[in-house]
C-alpha cells in the first residue's frame, strides 16, 4: 500500500480505533478475515448468512443496538448430530447445554474442543457477527470489513497458526523448559532475577525513604558535609563487580553447552526463506513448516537461508541462532519428552516476518519413523503409485508456502493471485509481456526475478518471490502447472 494513503487512513483510523477501544475492551470491534476462517467456521458462517438472510435486512437497518446471540438453526436435530458423532465410539461423549447450543448453531461436534479454545467461531443471529468463546470469555466479532479487523483465529488459519498450548505452562516469567540445558538457562535467569529484585528493592526503598524522611522543611538545612566516602564507594563498586563476575562465568558455561552438540546427535538441516522453513533429513526427506524428531535425542540443526537474514528461535529449548545466506550456523537441543513446540523467526525479514512460524513435534521413535516415511512419500498414494499431478500441485501449493502470497480465490496478495491466471497476458515491469503458459510458470518459479509482473495499476510486485530453483523438483513444478490450469476462469479481484 502506498504510504501517503496510509498516513491519511491511519490518522482517521486512530480516531476510530481509539473510540472503539474506549467503548468496550472485551469486544474488540471487528472483523473479517476471510483468509483466516477455517473451512468449518467459514462454512458455518455462510450457512448462517443463508438461513438468516431474511432477518439480516431488518437487522442491518435496525442495527447495532440489538445484541447478537447464538443462532438457532430450526431444522437442525442436535440429538441426531450428536448421535451420528458418537456412533461406533466406545466412550460416547456427553455435551453440556452450552455445547449443545453451539452444535445447534452449526458447529460440528468434533470442533467443540477447538471452539472452547476460541479457534472455531459460533454463528450468531446477526449474519455479520460470530461469537468467539476464548477461554470462557465471549467475544463478539463482526465480520463487517468496515468496522476494523480481527480475524477468527483457527488452527488451520494461514495467518498466525496457533502452535502448541504448552507456553501456558511454566513460571510467571518463562515458558516451561523442555530440556536440561534449558533448565540451566532458567537457573541463571532466576539468579539474575533475584539480583534484580534485591537491588530494585534497595534502590527503590532508599529512594522513597530519603524523599520522605529528608523532605524540605522550614529551618532544616541539608547536611553539606557529606560529599564523599571512599570506603563506602569502594564497597559499592566491588560488590556489583563480584556479582557480575559470577553471572558472566555461569552464563558462559551454559552458553558453551548450548553451542556444543554431542558427537552422536542427529542432524537436521533447515533452510529459511521468505517466509517459511524447509527441513531436510539425512535420508533426503524434506518437510516444510513442520518437523518431527524422536524423543530424548540430541538434535543438531544446521541452518542456512536462501535470501535475507532469519533467526531460528525455539523458546522451549531456550535456543536461538541467526540464519544467514551463504553461511551455515548450528544449534542443538536435546529433544526430551514428547510434545509440540513453537519455532519463531526472530530476525526481521520483511512483510510476513510475523507469519514465519514452524512447528516442532517431539514424539516416540516409532511415531517419528512412521511420520518420516509418510513425509518422504507425500507424492505417493497408499498403493505406492504417484498421485495425480493436480493433487501434487495442490499439496505443493499448501506445503511450499505459495499460499501465503498467492491466493486462489482471486484476491490480491503479496504476489498475484493464481485464480484465472492460466492463459492470461502478463505485463512485466521491464515493459515486455508473455502469455501465462507452461514455460511462463516454470520460469516464474525457478527464476522469478527475470519476469516481474505488474498489477492492474501498473505497479510492479517487486522482488518478493522466493527463488525455488534449488528446492523444487520437476514433478512439483508440473503439479503447480496443473494446479494453476485448474483455476482457469476463476474470477480475479485484483
Amino acid at each position, binding site marked *: 500500500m502506498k504510504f501517503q494513503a*496510509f498516513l491519511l487512513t491511519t490518522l482517521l483510523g486512530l480516531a476510530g480505533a481509539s473510540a472503539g477501544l474506549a467503548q468496550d475492551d472485551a469486544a474488540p470491534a471487528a472483523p473479517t478475515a476471510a483468509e483466516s476462517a477455517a473451512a468449518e467456521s467459514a462454512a458455518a458462517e455462510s450457512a448462517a448468512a443463508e438461513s438468516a438472510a431474511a432477518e439480516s435486512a431488518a437487522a442491518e437497518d435496525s442495527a447495532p443496538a440489538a445484541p447478537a446471540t447464538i443462532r438457532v438453526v430450526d431444522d437442525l436435530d442436535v440429538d441426531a448430530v450428536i448421535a451420528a458423532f458418537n456412533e461406533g465410539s466406545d466412550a460416547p461423549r456427553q455435551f453440556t447445554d452450552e455445547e449443545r447450543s453451539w452444535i445447534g448453531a452449526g458447529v460440528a461436534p468434533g470442533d467443540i474442543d477447538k471452539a472452547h479454545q476460541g479457534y472455531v467461531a459460533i454463528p450468531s443471529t446477526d449474519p455479520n457477527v460470530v461469537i468467539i468463546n476464548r477461554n470462557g470469555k465471549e467475544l463478539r466479532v463482526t465480520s463487517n470489513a468496515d468496522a476494523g*479487523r480481527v480475524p477468527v*483465529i483457527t488452527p488451520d488459519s494461514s495467518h498466525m497458526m496457533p502452535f502448541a498450548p504448552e507456553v501456558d505452562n511454566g513460571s510467571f516469567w518463562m515458558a516451561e523448559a523442555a530440556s536440561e540445558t534449558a533448565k540451566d538457562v532458567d537457573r541463571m535467569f532466576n539468579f539474575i532475577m533475584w539480583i534484580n529484585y534485591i*537491588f*530494585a528493592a534497595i534502590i*527503590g526503598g532508599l529512594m522513597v525513604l*530519603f524523599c520522605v524522611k529528608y523532605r524540605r522543611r522550614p529551618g532544616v538545612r541539608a547536611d553539606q558535609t557529606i560529599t564523599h566516602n571512599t570506603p563506602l564507594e569502594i564497597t559499592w563498586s566491588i560488590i556489583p563487580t563480584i556479582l557480575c563476575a559470577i553471572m558472566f562465568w555461569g552464563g558462559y558455561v551454559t552458553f558453551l553447552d548450548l553451542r556444543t552438540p554431542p558427537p552422536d546427535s542427529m542432524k537436521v538441516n533447515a533452510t529459511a526463506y521468505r517466509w517459511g522453513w524447509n527441513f531436510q533429513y539425512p535420508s533426503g526427506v524434506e518437510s516444510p513448516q513442520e518437523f518431527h524428531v524422536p524423543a530424548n535425542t540430541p538434535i543438531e540443526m544446521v541452518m542456512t537461508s536462501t535470501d535475507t537474514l532469519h533467526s531460528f528461535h525455539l523458546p522451549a529449548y531456550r535456543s536461538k541462532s541467526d540464519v544467514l*545466506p551463504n553461511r551455515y550456523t548450528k544449534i542443538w537441543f536435546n529433544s526430551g519428552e514428547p510434545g509440540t513446540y513453537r519455532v519463531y523467526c526472530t530476525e526481521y525479514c520483511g512483510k510476513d516476518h*510475523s507469519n514465519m512460524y514452524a512447528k516442532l513435534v517431539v514424539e516416540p521413535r516409532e511415531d517419528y519413523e512412521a511420520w518420516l516415511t509418510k513425509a518422504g512419500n507425500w507424492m505417493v498414494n497408499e498403493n505406492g503409485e504417484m498421485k495425480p499431478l493436480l493433487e501434487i500441485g495442490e499439496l505443493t501449493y499448501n506445503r511450499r508456502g505459495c499460499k501465503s502470497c498467492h491466493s486462489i480465490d482471486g484476491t490480491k496478495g503479496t504476489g498475484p493471485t493464481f485464480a484465472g491466471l492460466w492463459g492470461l497476458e502478463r505485463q512485466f515491469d521491464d515493459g515486455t509481456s508473455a502469455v501465462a503458459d507452461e514455460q511462463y510458470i516454470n520460469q516464474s518459479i525457478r527464476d522469478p526475478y527475470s519476469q516481474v509482473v505488474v498489477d492492474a495499476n501498473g505497479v510492479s510486485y517487486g522482488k518478493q518471490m522466493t527463488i525455488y530453483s534449488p528446492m523444487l523438483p520437476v514433478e512439483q513444478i508440473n503439479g503447480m502447472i496443473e494446479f494453476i490450469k485448474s483455476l482457469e476462469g476463476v474470477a480475479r479481484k485484483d
Partner: protein
Amino acid sequence: MTQVDIPVESPVRPVQHLDKNFINHSKGFLSWALTLDHKRIGLMYLVGISLSFFLGGLFALAIRLELFSPGMQFMDAATYNQVFTLHGAVMVFLFIIPGIPAALGNVVLPLMLGAKDVAFPRLNLCSYYLWLSGAAFFIWTLFSNGLDTGWTFYTPYSTSYTDTSVIQATAGVFMLGFSSIFTGLNFLVTIHKMRPPGMTWHKLPLFLWGMYGTAIMQLLATPVLGITLLLLIMETTLGIGIFDPQKGGDPVLYQHFFWFYSHPAVYIMILPAMAVVSEIIAAFSRKHIFGYRMIAYSSVSIALLSFLVWGHHMFVSSESTLATLIFSAITFTIAIPSAIKVFNWLATLYKGSVQLDTPMLYALGFMWLFTIGGLTGLFLAVLSTDVVLHDTYFVVAHFHYVMVGGTLFAFLGGLHYWWPKMTGKMYSETSGRIAAVTAFIGFNLAFFPQFIMGSRGMPRRYADYTADFELYHRLSTTGTLILGVGLALLAYTLLRSLFGGKKAPANPWGSATIEWECPSPPPHHNFDHPPLATDPYDMERVEWDEEVQGYVPAVGHRPTAH
C-alpha cells in the same frame, strides 16, 4: 567548616529580568534563521526535536493500537513494518540522539561556562541546518515509498529486497550524523578552551562532564556510521558487493560496522541524561552532589568502554565463541560505572533537603526506570540468557526503559529545570507534577508487561501474535494511552506558561552553577562580566529571597572546604 556571618548593610540583588533579552533583542525571520546565538539555535533545535518526538509518538500509538488484539486491526503487515521502522528511526535519529545535547546543551553549555557562545558559532548553525536537512530527507522518505527495514537497515534486506526509500533515509541519517559530529566537536573545544577563571576540571559541573563524554563519542563513532551508510548506498545504487552475499559481500560485516557506531550511540543517548539528572538531584536536594569525582570519571569511562562492546548485539548472529566471551566480559565492566552513578545519586538524597518539584519528579522517575533498565540489561549481557531473550520483547522493554524511561525522562526533567532560564517563564507546578506522575505510571504499565511476554517468547517486530500474549499487549497499549495523556498535559503546561506564566527569577531552584547567575531569559551576550567559578555544588552559596521569589547570592557566605 565553620561559617562566619559577616554583616553587610544592603545586599545588592542581581538583576532578575531584562527588557532586552536574547528572545526579543532582534526581530524577524532572518534574525532567527541566520542567528549565531547558541540560545536561539538551541530553541530552534528544541522546536524541531519536539515535532519529531510528536511524529515518532504518533507512530508508537499506531503500533500499540494495532497490537491491542491478535489479528490485524487497521493496517496490513507491510504497513505495520513501515510504522515500526519509522517509529524507531525518527525517535533514534531525529529525537533521542540530538535531544539533550543539541537542544538543552546548546542553550545551557555556554551559560554554564559563563561564556558568550560556543567556540564555533557558525559550525553550530551549520549543524542545525544539517539536522533540518536530515529531517527533510526523512519527511521525503515518508512521502515517497516509506521505509520498512527496521531502524537498523540490516543487509541484505535493505540493499536487495526492499522496495522502500532506503537511499533517502540513509542519506538523511548521514546528514544527521554530521550534525551530531559538529555539535560534539563544538562542545569539546568549548569545554577545553572557554572555561571561566576558577573552573578547573574538578570544578566542572557534572552536566559538562557528561557533555564532554558524549562529545568524544559523537566525534569518534559517528564517522563510522557515515562510512557504513555510504557503503550501503553504493551497494544499492552501484551494485558493488559489500554486504549482500549474492554480490559477494557479507551481511555480518554490516552488523559489525553498524553497531560499532550504534552501541556508542546508546551512550550518546544516556550519558547526557545522566548528566542532567546529576544536576537536578543536587539542586533539589540543596546538597552537594555525593562522590563528584566518581560520577565524573564514570562518565568518561562509560564513553571509552562503549567502543569495546558492540559485539554484544551479535551474540546469536554467528559470532565466534571467543568473540562472544570477550564482548560479554567487557559488557559487564560498563555495568559498574552505571551502578556507581545510581548509588551516588541515592547518597546525594541522604540528609538532603528534598523538594519534589517537577524536574525532581522526572529525575527520580529516571532513577527508578534507569535502574530497571540497567538491571534487566544483565540478562542480556549474560550469554546463556541472552540467547533466549535476544530479539524478543524483553529487549524491546529493556531498551525502552533505558531510552524512554532514561533519556526521555531526563530530557523532560532538564526541560522543566531550564525552562525558566530558556523562556523566562514559570510553568504551573501543579499540572507539571500531575503530568510527570501520569507519564511515569503510563510508562511502567506500557513497558513492564513487555518484559514478561518477551521472556515467554514473543518475538519483536511482529505485526501479529497468538492469543496467549493478548493480556500483556492490552496492558501495554493501555499504558501507552496513559503515557500519551501525561505527555499531552506536559505540552499543555509548558505552552500555557509561555502566555500566562509568571516571570521567572534568575535562579528559581537554588542551583549553584553559573547559568543561574544571569537574568532569565539571558541577554544576547549572556554575561556583562565573566563570572568567577566556584564549587558548582556549594548550594549554600545562594539563599531564598522572598522579594524576587528566587535564590540570590547568600550574604557573607564562605565556601566550605572539602
